[in-house]
């Protein structure tokens, strides 16, 4: 089965410009996640969707970041305007469902290759 797809793989922009990332999750996966991974750190969850609804966006800097998953499949993450500290790898992941418990083994997160953003 095809994995999680992300594009572009690399992006270089000037500060104050805008940028958008795209993610196509594994077919049939209801839950989609966007993570930010700054160099030298582990991934940090930015936003989590269940179908086309937001489950958690508590760590999304909403003054500059936005994300949508309009039809419950593909998702886009946008930064406007970008700051130097936004330089990071942006990872998208998907899982079949949500929540732990007896069916938790089906809720493993599968990660895409990421988009490396450099803000100059």
């Amino acid at each position, binding site marked *: 089965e095809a994995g999680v797809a992300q594009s572009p793989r690399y992006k270089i922009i000037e500060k104050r410009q805008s940028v958008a990332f795209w993610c196509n999750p594994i077919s049939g996966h209801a839950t989609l996640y966007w993570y930010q991974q700054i160099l030298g750190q*582990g991934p940090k969850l930015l936003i989590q969707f269940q179908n086309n609804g937001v489950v958690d966006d508590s760590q999304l800097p909403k003054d500059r970041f936005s994300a949508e998953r309009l039809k419950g499949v593909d998702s886009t993450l946008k930064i406007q305007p970008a700051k130097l500290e936004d330089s990071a790898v942006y990872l998208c992941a998907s899982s079949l469902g949500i929540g732990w418990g007896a069916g938790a083994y089906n809720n493993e997160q599968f990660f895409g290759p990421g988009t490396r953003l450099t803000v100059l």
Partner: protein
Amino acid sequence: AQSVTQPDIHITVSEGASLELRCNYSYGATPYLFWYVQSPGQGLQLLLKYFSGDTLVQGIKGFEAEFKRSQSSFNLRKPSVHWSDAAEYFCAVGASFNKFYFGSGTKLNVKP
């Protein structure tokens, strides 16, 4: 609050030697624990996971991990390291609604 600590930023081992990567977690409820590996330019790949039951968990690529509740640890081990194991390894704890908290990672170098 949930957190994951990986105390070793870099580790270098010789090919064929044994490996142990440390992970300590802080979580108020029953932890769901994971180890992921990330090769340069790649996404994260799941090595193994612990949900319940046997505290010694077997994963892919010959890795295993042991959950020790009394020590709040979930250390990753491999008896004989291969050059292809050079990568960055992340420990994570799963909280409610599939929310993950990742450690800061350990970079593994393998000497020939």
